């Protein structure tokens, strides 16, 4: 009797196990860890607000990017006249400028990262998975490009093709993929040595399927982390290109352009520098918090 009871109890335990049959994938685990990270979640929220404002902000204001007015040159931030962030030395509304700048800066940050991601993942994964001589050749090519100074490269592009916002995308993207390729290659090399790859090979799985099902999902973690850290880097690169006069051209604006002009008027109108610089800094912090949060969430050591 007692034995029977013990058995039925263990059967109950089995059923209990069966009750939570739906397994928890590593992605779900990571998502849960991430959502518990206050700094990272704060970063997501603030960044989301900035992104929304970059779209909605200019619409709220009664002014547009083209509105120049002699009466309102160099007004400090005020609630009157709806010049919430004040105006610049040509009388343009800073609120509109700041959010339009955000639009351009964020787009450049995201787009360039996307270009870097595309080239970097394809290049790095190929080099890493094929290996051998191909890998050697491909990575030496990356080394050569690394040795080329970014600024030098962009100045050449600008002199050849003229100033153009799309050129900025391409220029930054073309340089930043190098690090991405190195990261992806390193990850691919380590994943390639895992036994489950060998097991898949031994089961007759095709190379394409192996890369798609086994390599990329296990490489993607560190790549996501790097992407979130690359976006702010690229925003910063754009702003220093703009600061040097190589980036975005008027009337289009970006945080880099605003900061550059604000720096010239620092003594008379400090808000021209402080407002875009503050937003730039906040955005940087947000991306970095998110990146750190993702790294902690995806870290295999924690598994």
């Amino acid at each position, binding site marked *: 009797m*007692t*034995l029977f*009871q*013990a058995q039925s*109890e*263990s059967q109950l*335990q089995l059923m209990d196990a069966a009750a939570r049959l739906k397994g928890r994938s590593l992605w779900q685990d990571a998502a849960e860890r991430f959502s518990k990270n206050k700094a990272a979640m704060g970063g997501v929220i603030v960044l989301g607000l900035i992104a929304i404002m970059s779209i909605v902000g200019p619409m709220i204001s009664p002014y547009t990017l083209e509105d120049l007015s002699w009466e309102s040159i160099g007004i400090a931030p005020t609630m009157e006249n709806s010049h919430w962030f004040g105006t610049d030395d040509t009388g343009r509304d800073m609120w509109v400028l700041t959010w339009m700048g955000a639009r351009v800066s964020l787009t450049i940050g995201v787009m360039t990262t996307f270009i870097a991601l595309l080239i970097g993942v394809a290049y790095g994964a190929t080099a890493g998975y094929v290996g051998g001589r191909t890998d050697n050749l491909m990575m030496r090519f990356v080394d050569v490009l690394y040795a080329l100074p970014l600024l030098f490269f962009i100045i050449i592009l600008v002199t050849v093709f003229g100033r153009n916002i799309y050129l900025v995308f391409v220029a930054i993207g073309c340089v930043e993929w190098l690090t991405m390729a190195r990261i992806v290659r390193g990850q691919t090399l380590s994943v390639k040595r895992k036994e489950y790859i060998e097991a898949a090979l031994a089961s007759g799985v095709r190379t394409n399927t192996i890369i798609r099902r086994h390599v990329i999902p296990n490489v993607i973690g560190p790549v996501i982390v790097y992407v979130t850290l690359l976006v702010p880097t690229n925003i910063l690169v754009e702003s220093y290109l703009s600061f040097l006069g190589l980036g975005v051209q008027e009337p289009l604006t970006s945080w880099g352009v605003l900061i550059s002009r604000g720096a010239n008027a620092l003594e008379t109108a400090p808000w021209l520098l402080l407002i875009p610089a503050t937003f730039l800094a906040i955005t940087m912090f947000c991306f970095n918090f998110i990146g750190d949060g993702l790294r902690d969430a995806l870290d295999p050591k924690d598994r």
Partner: protein
Amino acid sequence: METVLALQHLTVRFDTKDGSVAAVNDLSLSVGRGECIGIVGESGSGKSQTFLASMGLLAGNGKATGRALFRGHDLLKMNRDHLDKLRGNRVCMIFQDSGTSLTPHMRIGDQLMEILIAHKGHTPDVARKRVLEVMESMRIPDIEKRLTQYPHEFSGGMRQRVMIAMALLCEPDLLIADEPTTALDVTVQAQILNLFRALKAHTKSAIVLITHDLGVVAGLCDRVVVMYGGRMVEEGPVADIFATPKHPYTQGLLRCMPRLDQLLDADLDAIPGQPPNLENLPKGCAFAERCSQANERCTTERPVLRELSPTRRAACHLLEAA
């Protein structure tokens, strides 16, 4: 027999994100001078954590309570400096991979001599002579050359030999060897086990041998402690444990191994189920759900460790009835 190490109600807990997990629970045991005690258990049985905790080497989120008396002094209450002085001098530890316990940028000979100079106050000349003497007694070929090499030039077996040489040099009161031969090949393991035998014969050190290999225990130890799910389930002299194991887990462990001295033309007598999950230990006996003899009481009430004879203890309800 003089007691070297006495653990009293030692409990080791780890803080994890899912709460506090007990790796070792209310463990009491003692090791005497010149005695070799074998700690047997599977991964997660708490066999390693017990002694890491005693030596103050727990991971950051671990906490040990109870008492770990080394010659009457509680190691758990000892301050850092005092503990550092004990370790590597009166207490030596050998781990599975000793490559990590040797400094990679110092010559082996210098590392060995340093111990004697630092702990015993020998002059370099005396220390050198003593090191050579010990290495010679271990029959290591090419000693002079070997001593000028660096750890990475040594194989795993050679590094393990160096660790034993260290133990021989300091003649510690207590030697703790945690799976010292697990990473080695059988022929090298045989060499190392021979050295342990020599060590046992020539020093009065108390030896704690932590292992999952019952064969190693059989050849070396005087007394055996079997652990399961963070608790001691059985303890006794080595001959008795192997001849008449009392606890169902010990019995199962001995029965389930394929043995070189017996040929079995049938399935092995495997223990069913999985090792216990420390985060979710059952209310009763941790082994109950894998035990073929378990009854209702086993799943509801935890058995306490009781004395079966002056030398033997076991924790099982079934033994009470018998």
